[in-house]
C-alpha cells in the first residue's frame, strides 16, 4: 500500500520553479543537486532552504518545510557547493546508481522488463521487480548543460541504473541574464537522447514531473524537463493539496555492485549504446504513447473532418488553452485552419511516431503545423524525419519561433498561432 502524506498548502501562488520543486518532493526525491543561475535558481534554492542549509525565506518553503519536518521527509541538497554543473550532475549520478530496494512493475510487461534489466545483476529476480534507490533531481540553467555534458552523456551509458534521475533546465531564450540564448532541447533530445519535456504551466508542472519520475524510473532512463524564462518566474494559483510519496522517500539505501554496467569502458558500453538506440528507444516511444495523457499531453479534435494538425508545445500550449475558454478564439482557429486536430504536448523528445501515423491514417490530414519555441526545431525535425521514413502524404510546416520574446515585445503566442 502506498504511503502518501497529504497536506494543504492553503491559498498560494507558485512560480514555475517552485512548481517543479513541488513535483520533485511529491515524487519522494531524496537527493537534489544543482548549480544556481537564472532562471532556474529557485528550484534548487527551494531544496536548499527545505534541507535546512539556508534560512526559509518565502511562504512556499516555510509551509512545505513544516510539513517535511512533521512527516520525517529525508532531503539532501547540494547547490553552489558543487562548484559547477558538471560536478552537480556527477554527484547526482553517484546518488542515483545506488539500487538496493525493489518496487513492483507498473508500466513494463515481463518481456519489456527482460529487455531493460536483462543484462544487469538484477536479471535473476524471479518476480521481475524494478530495482530502485534514491530518486534524484539535478537542476541548472541552460548553459549548465554545456558544462555538465560529460556527466550527462555518461548517464545514458549506464541505463537502466540512471532511472530515477530527473534533470531540470531553465532555458533563458531571452538572453536576459546569459551570454547566449541557447535552446537546450537540442542537447537533451538530439545529443543526449533522453526523454525531454518542455513544461507549459506552473499549475500543472508538478504533476508532470511526478509522473515522469514514475514512468521513466521504471524504464531506467533519466529524463529532462525544461521551462523558459517567463514560465520559470511567473506565479499562478495552484492546486493546494500536496501529496508526498513517503514510501519512495524512505527506500532502503545501499549500493549493489555491477561493474559491468557501471565501469564505462569500451567493451561494456558498445553493446549498451547499440541497445539503447535500437531497442530501448522504440520501447520508450511505445511507453510514451501508452502513457500519453499520464505525461500531461492531450489530443483534441475540433470538427469532424480535420485536414490540418497543430502541434503546440511549451508556451504555445500555455496560450492555446485560451481557445477552450474563449469562443471567439475558437471561431478564429476554425476559420484559419478549418477542422483541426490539436496535439497539446509537453513532449519534445522522443516524438511518438506511431501516434502521428495513426492520426494521419484516421483523418484526411494534409498539413501538420508545428509550434515550438527555440532554434533547435527539435519537434519539427523529428516529424519531418517520420514523414520521410514512413512516406506519409502530409506536409510539415515549422511555425515556431527561434527565441523567447522579451516582455516589451508584446508577443502573443495565441495571436501567432491564429495569425501566422
Amino acid at each position, binding site marked *: 500500500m502506498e504511503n502518501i502524506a497529504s497536506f494543504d498548502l492553503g491559498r498560494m501562488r507558485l512560480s514555475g520553479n517552485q512548481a517543479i520543486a513541488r513535483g520533485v518532493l511529491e515524487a519522494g526525491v531524496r537527493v537534489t543537486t544543482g548549480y544556481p543561475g537564472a532562471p532556474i535558481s529557485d528550484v534548487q534554492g527551494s531544496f536548499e532552504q527545505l534541507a535546512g542549509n539556508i534560512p526559509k525565506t518565502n511562504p512556499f518553503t516555510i509551509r512545505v518545510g513544516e510539513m517535511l519536518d512533521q512527516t520525517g521527509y529525508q532531503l539532501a541538497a547540494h547547490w553552489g557547493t558543487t562548484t559547477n554543473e558538471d560536478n552537480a550532475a*556527477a554527484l547526482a549520478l553517484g546518488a542515483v546508481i545506488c539500487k538496493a530496494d525493489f518496487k513492483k512493475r507498473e508500466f513494463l510487461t515481463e518481456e519489456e522488463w527482460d529487455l531493460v534489466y536483462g543484462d544487469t545483476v538484477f536479471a535473476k529476480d524471479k518476480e521481475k521487480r524494478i530495482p530502485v534507490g534514491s530518486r534524484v533531481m539535478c537542476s541548472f540553467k541552460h548553459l549548465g548543460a554545456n558544462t555538465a555534458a560529460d556527466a550527462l552523456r555518461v548517464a545514458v551509458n549506464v541505463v537502466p541504473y540512471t532511472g530515477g534521475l530527473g534533470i531540470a533546465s531553465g532555458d533563458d531564450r531571452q538572453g536576459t541574464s546569459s551570454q547566449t540564448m541557447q535552446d537546450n532541447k537540442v542537447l537533451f533530445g538530439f545529443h543526449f537522447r533522453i526523454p525531454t519535456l518542455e513544461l507549459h504551466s506552473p499549475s500543472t508542472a508538478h504533476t508532470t514531473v511526478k509522473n515522469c519520475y514514475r514512468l521513466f524510473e521504471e524504464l531506467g532512463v533519466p529524463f529532462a524537463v525544461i521551462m523558459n524564462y517567463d514560465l520559470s518566474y511567473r506565479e499562478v494559483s495552484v492546486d493546494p493539496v500536496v501529496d508526498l510519496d513517503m514510501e519512495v522517500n524512505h527506500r532502503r539505501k545501499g549500493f549493489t555492485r555491477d561493474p559491468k554496467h557501471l565501469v564505462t569502458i569500451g567493451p561494456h558500453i558498445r553493446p549498451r549504446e547499440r541497445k539503447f538506440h535500437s531497442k530501448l528507444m522504440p520501447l520508450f516511444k511505445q511507453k510514451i504513447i501508452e502513457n500519453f495523457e499520464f505525461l500531461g499531453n492531450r489530443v483534441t479534435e475540433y470538427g469532424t473532418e480535420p485536414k490540418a494538425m497543430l502541434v503546440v508545445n511549451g508556451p504555445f500550449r500555455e496560450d492555446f488553452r485560451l481557445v477552450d475558454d474563449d469562443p471567439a478564439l475558437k471561431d478564429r482557429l476554425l476559420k484559419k485552419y478549418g477542422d483541426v486536430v490539436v496535439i497539446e504536448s509537453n513532449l519534445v523528445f522522443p516524438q511518438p511516431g506511431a501516434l502521428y501515423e495513426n492520426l494521419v491514417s484516421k483523418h484526411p490530414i494534409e498539413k501538420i503545423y508545428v509550434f515550438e519555441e527555440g532554434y533547435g526545431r527539435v519537434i519539427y525535425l523529428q516529424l519531418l524525419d517520420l514523414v520521410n521514413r514512413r512516406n506519409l502524404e502530409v506536409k510539415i510546416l515549422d511555425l515556431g519561433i527561434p527565441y523567447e520574446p522579451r516582455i516589451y515585445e508584446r508577443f502573443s503566442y495565441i495571436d501567432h498561432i491564429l495569425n501566422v
Partner: protein
Amino acid sequence: MSSKQNPAPKHKAADEITYLRPVSNCSGCGDTKVSWSVREGMRRFNRQLKLKGKDRYELIYAADRGCGNLQGYHAYGIVDAIFCMGSGAIVGDGIKESCSEKQIVVTASGDGAYNFNISGIKFAAKNKKFGAINVIYNNYNIRMTGGQIPLEVDFDKEGSAFGFEMIHINPYRVNDNAELFKELYGRYLNKEKIMVVADGVCVLDMGKDAKNSGIRMGHFIRSDECLDLKFAKERERVAREEPEKLKDLPKFKCRLCGIGLRCHALLDNDPGKCFGCGACIQFPCPVGALSFEGPSFSTSISMTELKKT
C-alpha cells in the same frame, strides 16, 4: 572462428596472430600494488572488528579514468564505477548519499584526473556529512596517453588547504599500506578526510630513471620452500614415471604471490621480467619462500636514496 554472420576478415595477413588476453599492467606497476593494499586493508579491518557475513563492511570504489584505475577493475575487480575524467571523487560523494552505512566509499584518481577536476575533490573535502579517503596515483605524468607532462601539483600544500590529512605512501610496501588502509577505514567512519598519495606508481619511468642513474635494480628470489617450485618437481616426476596421471594433476600449487600482486615475473618464475619493485618483500607468503636481492623501489622511490643502498 568465422560464420555466415561473422565472416573472417579478408585482408588478414597470414602471419598475423591476435593474442587474446586480459588487460594487465606491468609486473612492477605501483597501481596494482595499491589496489591490493586497499582490498587487503578492508579484509583486515573486518577481521579486526570480528565481523562476518552480512555484518562485514563492504568496499565501494569509485574511480577516475586512467590505467591506475583500470587495473583495479581488470586485475582486482575492486572498481565499482568509472564515469567521466575527474569525476571519481564527486561520484563517490553521490554514492555516499545513497549507500548503506555498512559500505565504505574509497575514491581514486590519477594525478592527471586530479588536475582535471580539482573542484570535485575539494567538494569531497568540504562535505561535512561524510568521511573521505581519496587515493591519488601519482606517476608525475599523464602516462596512458603517451607521457605528457601535466601541471605540476604540490599535493601537500593543495590537499592540506582543502582540508585533507595528507599521507604519502610507497606503493610497493604492500603490507604497511594494507595496515594503513585498515586504520583509515575506521577513521573514515569518524568522518575524517584523508588523501593518500601513492608516489611513483609508474615503474617504467622509475626503471628508466634508475638506469640513467647507474643503479642496477635487484630481483626476487624464491627459496626451495616455495610450494610451486616443489610442486613443479613433483609434476616432473609424475610426467616421467606415471605420465597417465599427469592430466589429473593441477598445473600449480600456490601462485598466491603472483596472482595477489598481479606480477608476471612471479607467475612465470622469471627474474628476467622483474622490474625490481620489491613489492614481494612484504607479501605474506604462507611459507616465507620469497626474498629479494639488490636494491628495490620498496626501499625508496628516490634515486638518491637508492644510490646510497
